[in-house]
């Protein structure tokens, strides 16, 4: 399983765009990149997943360069409620039996 590296923490202010970059140098050909969000006292929640280029949903965008050795989660116009820990994971997709290994995560603090 590919190891991921991401910043331990980030600070932002309401209304700003936040970009969290994750490094995954040993990503395998069949691995997808997935991001999860975790609020205090809750389990992680799936945000977005991608394989290459750009993926966008109603919550975030995910940018993946051609070499796939890194990825960037982009949160547009954050609010106080986006304060959470964000985890980047890589794992094979398409199945439901692969174990997910969590890295340290990035603790995002949004200020008024």
């Amino acid at each position, binding site marked *: 399983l590919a190891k991921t590296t991401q910043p331990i923490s980030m600070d932002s202010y309401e209304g700003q765009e936040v970009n969290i970059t994750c490094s995954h140098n040993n990503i395998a050909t069949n691995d997808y990149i997935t991001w999860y969000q975790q609020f205090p006292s809750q*389990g992680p*929640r*799936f945000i977005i*997943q991608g394989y290459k280029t750009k993926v966008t949903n109603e919550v975030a965008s995910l940018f993946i360069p051609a070499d796939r050795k890194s990825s960037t989660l982009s949160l547009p116009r954050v609010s106080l409620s986006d304060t959470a820990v964000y*985890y980047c994971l890589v794992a094979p997709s398409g199945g*439901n039996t692969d*174990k*997910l290994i*969590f*890295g340290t995560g990035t603790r995002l603090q949004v200020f008024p």
Partner: protein
Amino acid sequence: SAVISQKPSRDICQRGTSLTIQCQVDSQVTMMFWYRQQPGQSLTLIATANQGSEATYESGFVIDKFPISRPNLTFSTLTVSNMSPEDSSIYLCSVGRDSSTYMYGYTFGSGTRLTVV
């Protein structure tokens, strides 16, 4: 995506006792996963539970300490045995993607906050 009900949500237990945590899913799933999350830390995978077979434990976790049952495709239990204060943590269960909605990721329960005194 699947909906998970995890019980209890929290408990305070005496050292040397055991606690069984239940995880109920609203749909049939092949694999269920159990994690531990110590305060301020990331999630650590304890074991993978497949219905009808023994659970597969990660390095550092053993069946005698964390026995797991998986009697059917919607239910699993994790027991924390002979507890010590070092077992104080949040325990979470998770299920894999539904094959028809794989883009929505895995689902996690809300966790069981265990305090051992």
